[in-house]
């Protein structure tokens, strides 16, 4: 392929991925509300379209036509900028997920991933922390005390759980001896998924993932019963929609990340890889929603304690054990 062709192919590929993921995001918002409804003995949205399937369209319509205002006490520039940061970070992280391997389709070579960075895992972690800056800045820039408290909580939570998440992944990285997500996925293909050799790391990862995406029981930044909505209290209209988009996108992406690291990524028999990955992501998302339906919210200080005194020691221990096992040569 000529360089021009490559660029065109990449643009098309990118558009397809973004399109698919954004429809998945729309689907996820309905699916979550429907599922939560069922978990709670009610129906969930059922007015917009058949079975409420057009609810995301209704939501978008509603949010777009709402008044877009900036509170008088806000820092106007940061207030506008803040909601964009998490969306950009989430979309950027998308390029790292291997949705499948290299395929020969329609006479051309199609790689079902955006980029294969040799330090993909690190970049992913960096991007996912970057998203939290939007929340923190937005909370601060609103000029509202509740938002400020929410932002402060988010900042603290980010620091604690980013470490736990990073450490939980180290075991996987040690086994596959690569920081490239594509390599990690390929290592598991046809072999043993890393969830089987790193179960503790998987649990720690899942907990940290819930914390990273600010969902119950870790939704302290918004905690609607304490801080009303925390960092996004003053946001409305499209800016609020952007925060929501980022939240759900990062939920999907972190599930994809988890599926790649621990569940073999696109690995699976008979069906094409991206379908397998989609199924695995769905399972993880279901778990996230199930947790949300069941658990109450942590208290701020307990959350910190849990992160620093439980998760980090466990994942460190996990690394130690992995290192010993690898050192003794069991892995090969």
């Amino acid at each position, binding site marked *: 392929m000529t360089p021009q062709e490559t660029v065109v192919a990449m643009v098309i590929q990118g558009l397809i991925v973004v399109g698919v993921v954004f429809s998945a995001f729309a689907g996820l918002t309905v699916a979550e509300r429907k599922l939560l409804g069922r978990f*709670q003995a009610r129906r969930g949205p059922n007015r917009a379209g058949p079975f409420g399937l057009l609810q995301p369209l209704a939501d978008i319509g509603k949010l777009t036509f709402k008044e877009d205002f900036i509170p008088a006490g806000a820092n106007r520039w940061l207030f506008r900028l803040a909601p964009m940061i998490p969306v950009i970070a989430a979309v950027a992280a998308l390029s790292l997920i291997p949705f499948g391997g290299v395929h020969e389709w329609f006479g051309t070579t199609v790689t079902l991933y955006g980029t294969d960075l040799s330090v993909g895992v690190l970049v992913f972690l960096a991007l996912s922390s970057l998203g939290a800056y939007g929340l923190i800045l937005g909370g601060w820039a609103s000029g509202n005390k509740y938002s400020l408290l929410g932002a402060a909580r988010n900042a603290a939570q980010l620091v604690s759980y980013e470490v736990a998440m990073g450490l939980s992944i180290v075991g996987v990285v040690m086994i596959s001896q690569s920081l490239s997500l594509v390599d990690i996925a390929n290592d598991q293909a046809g072999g043993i998924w890393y969830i089987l050799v790193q179960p503790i790391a998987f649990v720690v990862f899942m907990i940290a993932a819930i914390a990273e995406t600010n969902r119950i029981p870790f939704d302290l930044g918004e905690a609607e019963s304490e801080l009303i909505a925390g960092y996004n209290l003053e946001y409305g209209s499209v800016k609020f929609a952007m925060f929501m988009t980022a939240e759900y996108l990062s939920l999907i992406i972190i599930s994809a990340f988890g599926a790649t690291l621990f569940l073999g990524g696109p690995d699976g028999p008979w069906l094409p890889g991206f379908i397998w990955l989609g199924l695995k992501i769905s399972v993880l998302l279901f778990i996230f929603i199930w947790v949300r339906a069941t658990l109450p919210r942590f208290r701020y200080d307990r959350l910190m304690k849990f992160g620093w005194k439980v998760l980090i020691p466990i994942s460190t221990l996990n690394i130690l054990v992995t290192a010993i096992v690898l050192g003794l040569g069991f892995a090969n």
Partner: protein
Amino acid sequence: MTMGTAGPRSGNFPIAAESREAREAAARDGRALTPTERIIAGVEARTPEEAIERTLTNEMLADARPGVRQPMLINLGPNHPSTHGVLRLIVELDGEVVREVTPVIGYLHTGIEKQCENKTWWQGITLVTRMDYLAPFANIKAYTMSVERLLQMEVPARAQWIRVLLAEMNRLASHLVWLGTSGLELGAMSVFFYCYRERDEMLDLFEMVSGERMNHRYFQVGGCSDDLPPGFIERVRAFTEEMPARIDDYEALLTGNPIWKDRMVGIGVLPAEQLLALGVTGPTLRAAGVPYDLRKVAPYSGYQHFEFDVPTATEGDCYARYLVRVREMRESLRIIRQVLDGMPEGPVIADDRKVVLPPREELAYSMEALIHHFKLVSEGFTVPAGEAYVAIESPRGEMGCYAVSDGGPRPYRIHMRDPSFVNLQATAPLCKGGYLADLIAIVATLDPVMGGVDR
């Protein structure tokens, strides 16, 4: 960039107005601002002038020297998702630690006590049910019992049993709302929906018996306005049979949940003596180890005939309050079952033509009954002069009604001692030193109902 650089803003700021009001009120009486007024006046400065005035009126801020950590004042409510209605808490925060809480109430004040003085005793029933809207049967029960005491009137056995039945169902319904909303406030969403599912069945039953789901006027002076409808007992029995499993479900979701325990155990503890001194009653007091339950201590409407325990705990923390209330739900079911099994036959309202409306069928043929009916409805019955204070155990504690009569057809004075009003005073001592998140848990387990607090 600092916050509040936008300069003076136009418009009406109710809070700024409140600050002025407080100072005016104090000036009129020629006194200094009281602590509560000072906090209300200083809570939020919206304009530079306001900020200067705030500094003048608020000693705490006037004392703020450079380097001294200033608390952050936040206004929780009157419209806030977890303040149970229109409770406003002005919270001084040091980081996330609560230094001081000042509850401000009165946003739902409707002057029910004043209105009662201008209605007949009979019409008063419809007013008092609306106070504590989660326990309407307790409200009317206290009211009608105090009027009955002034009249020295005997209530037939069946009416007493029906009252016990509905009061206990009401306790169950009220605790369900408490459990659901508390769960929601601490982030446990599902339990809220489960509790409301069951509570709705209770409201259905209330509708079946009284015609209204919430603000019943079913208890009348002398008994109940109607007999139980056919099929009611069977429905309630079916309900009591499935309810224990439902309570097991709530407990499965919460009791053993480590996060739930984390939020509740050891949070909001006051020793029993202090709670008593604050006048706190009900499950909050019982969770601190004082078995003060009027159904046992001073049995009324035949509670002495039923076998039930008064659940208590010794810890006095939020978790103990939670456990006590959940166990109370089971005890209420036990009482309901006993009432259903032993419901006596007989009239449901006393036969006292000077007070109770004559039976409807008599209006068709008895001139005397018709005259009584006209007199009772248009003028109301008279109550001998005197005063009576009757207290019953509402879901939230001691619900008292102090009725003063001057011998006329209207109450001279009705005062309702609402447990929420008194219990709410414990908020500040319970919350001090805890985290903001604890405040939510504490207010949730105090279970105030603002309709009752403000009356």
